[in-house]
């Protein structure tokens, strides 16, 4: 089995939101997109992805609708809502603050 990198805790929601900010996608597409863009470093486990999507739906940050894929299969596409866009902004700025803080700690000699 290939080695997978664990996601930083708490970042899954942000990654999903960011991915959906580019274009509406189905679940498989989200997982694939994160994997590709991270150059296979980040792998989203299906076991976490779908519960996370349900959670985001419930909070009203994403919405879902069934559409046809290019190959004419039915799939559930998720897209960002206005509230989700706002939430993404909040999470990004929090994350950047966190990274900056960690960076400062690591650079201190």
């Amino acid at each position, binding site marked *: 089995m290939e080695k997978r990198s664990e996601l930083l805790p708490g970042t899954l929601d942000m990654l999903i939101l960011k991915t959906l900010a580019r274009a509406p996608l*189905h679940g*498989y597409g989200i997982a694939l997109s994160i994997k590709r863009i991270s150059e296979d470093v980040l792998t989203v486990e*299906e*076991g976490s992805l779908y*519960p996370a999507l349900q959670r985001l739906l*419930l*909070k*009203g940050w994403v919405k879902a609708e069934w559409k046809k894929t290019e190959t004419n299969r039915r*799939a*559930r596409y998720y897209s960002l809502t206005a509230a989700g866009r706002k939430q993404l902004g909040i999470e990004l700025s929090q994350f950047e603050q966190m990274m900056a803080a960690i960076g400062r700690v690591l650079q201190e000699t």
Partner: protein
Amino acid sequence: MDAVARFFKKLWMLVTRERFHSELEEEIAFHREQQEKALQAEGMTPEEAQYAAKRQFGNAARLKEESLDTVGFRFESVFQDFRYGLRQLRSNPGFALTAIVILGLGIGASTAIFSAVSPILFEPLPYPQASRIMMIWYAGDDGSSVPQTFHTYREVAERSRSFDALAVMKPWQPTVVGADQPERIEGQQVSANYFRALGVSPALGRDFQAADDVFHGPKVVILSNGLWRRRYGGDSSIIGQPVRLDDSSYTVIGVMPRTFDNILAPTAEAWSPLQYDTGNITSIETREWGHHLRMVGRLRAGVSIEQARSDLDLIAHAPVAEFPRPSWVSLEHGFITNALQDDVTRGVKPALLSVLGAVLLVLLIACVNVTNLLLARGAQRRGEFAMRAALGAAPPRLIRQLLTESLLLAILGGAVGMVVAQFGVRALVALSPPELPRVNAIGVDRTVFAFALGVTALVGLVVGLIPALHVSRSEPHIGLQESSRRAAGGHQWTRRTLVVAEVALALVLLVSAGLLLHSLRRLFAIPPGFNSSHLLTMQVQTYGRRYDDDRVCHQFFAQAQDAVRQVPGVAAAAFTSQLPLSGDSDAYGVQFEGDNPQAAYPAFRYSVTPDYFETMSIPLRRGRLLDAHDGTDAPPVTLISESLAKRRFPDQDPIGKRVHIGGKVGGPMYTVVGVVGDVKQMSLALSESEAVYTTTEQWHWADGTLSLVVRTRGDAALTTAIKSAIWSVDKDQPVVRVATMDDLLAASAAQRRFVLILFEAFGLVALVLAATGIYGVLAGSVTERTREIGVRTALGASRGDIVALVVRQGMTLTGFGVVIGLSGAVAASQALVTLLFGVSQLDPVTYLGVIALLGGVSVVACWAPAWRAARVDPAITLRAE
């Protein structure tokens, strides 16, 4: 706002649950398909791709469950757990029934005890601002609480600024006459502020006023709701009407509310004003200077109990000319002031708390037992749990499932417990000692129900926790592999620990029960000072104006005594002014010639007919007994008890000494003519036996109420015949309080007996539970070790060896339990000290006896598993592997 929106979304999802499932299903299928395609594109065969995709996807069931958890309501899965739990219980009814019965008994017993204890110890009394109601006693020389005199009450009422209302009271037993049979009822004579001190007022009519409570004042009465309904048909027009009480006409001025709970005299049904004489304070022979009134007061708002105490102390230590005090009301030691709640509960608190402690121990043992059952059951269900874990149940989910199951058991147990509690409460009330206050408040009410509910929930969590943690910690693959073999590993250790705990707890209970049993035996071994067998007692009262004449009174009792003697089966009969062990307590200051007038000390006063000593079999130690010649005109003589003789005349002959009885300075001097044996008056446990005896005719006055003691031949029931004999003299005289002396003897130890019965019952339950615990663990252990035992037998171990092996294992558990339990028992017995009598709390006989009992029962519990182990056929077991 967000939460509301989320709630509605969840609600929508609940309605469309089917769709949610199918959509998720479809989404997952789509995901896998895409993955397979991608893998095939990388060059895998379709089969490889399908397998890889499946594996990569992981546990779909868990994913679905987690998704559902996210969108679902918590109760949905709880409901699911409950349904599953019910199915589990049904699939093993023997186990379920055992557990439910054990928990039901535990919860029921503790609920019943709690219901008895709660109104007394935890609930405020049923009066407004009940914490402000105080009992104020005269402090005796030995620090005891002595009733007040009327003039002391007047002085306090006049001088104290701490109370809104002060009142004194004394018992009153009027006879109600009317259309129905005459009926002697319990009542109280109270000063005008009695109900104001309690903070209650009549539901009909008016309360007493100062004008009612004056010497020779109007004859008025307030009725209880019960008496009003029973005797007067609940007719509201009774107010202002006359009723016949004790040969006089009383005007009804009020009826108390139905809810009124008269804690100071729970059986009282009528109240009339005390009407004592406020004048004549300097004549000290009056009842107004007798210590016989209880005093109750309601603290003024803002006055603390400490302030009230110091206020009263000041009054006690600064006498004023307006209220001169005789020597026996010096108030030298001040007053004893307690909150009413503490006052009424003080006597029974140690008993109740120890019973409560005992029942909680029983509950604990029941919990431990059911935990053990659950563990054993858990061992059998390992395969099932492993399967569930493999199918995607996360550990927290499994724990929750198991806790739900144990909670379900507890709830069913709690339901059984409520039924047990209902019966238990009834039994408790029937068993309760007479000094138990607020018996009518005992019942299963809202507080008790809440307690039962809380206990049930707690029990459910407690018994489920250990088994649940066990399951969640085990490795699923081991469970799957071993499920067919029903093996069990580390949990045996837990089960043994639990059995040790059970034995220890049982020992604590049994030792306590043993100590109490021993105490009671010691107590009853104490000679009361007379022969109690075949002794019938009853109280005969004179009722009616004509008995105000002393001679008529004496004549009536003399004729009644003669009539009773004629009854066949009566060996001897006599009257006494107070009856030993009946609750009578009539003591007077005794002052021998030449004693300092201040140094009078109290002794029980008995005015008796001369053959009292013969009837009671009280032995004469020196001198002579009283006889018929010691009448009204003869020189006054007295007998004194042995302990009074020893105390006052350690080196002299008391015969011929002269003595004042009753502090009556100008009164007659009685000459001591004899010394008789000591008699226990108040209880077998108390040693105060100083007493003086005079004939009824030579006492200062004629007592209107005397107790009849009758020595009977054989066991014939003579009560009716004796009553008719008395009524043949005067048919209107009430005869009450009929009891055999043996009944009175038993009743005098009622509180200890009450506690003992409960401890015995709890101890028995604990013993049985501990024994089943030992049996259960050993039986399980033998099943697991069948192979080992087979090998041992094959290698030449005899049946005796195998039995010894199993019994040793069981006895080791008992041994540990006993050692741990001993320290617990020592601690618990500290709490029992006030209930023990004549036995050390570390009494070695009790401890050894209990250990032997536990050991014996353990051996019995070991025997069945050991016997089964010894019959293991090595050939079969070895082949079976």
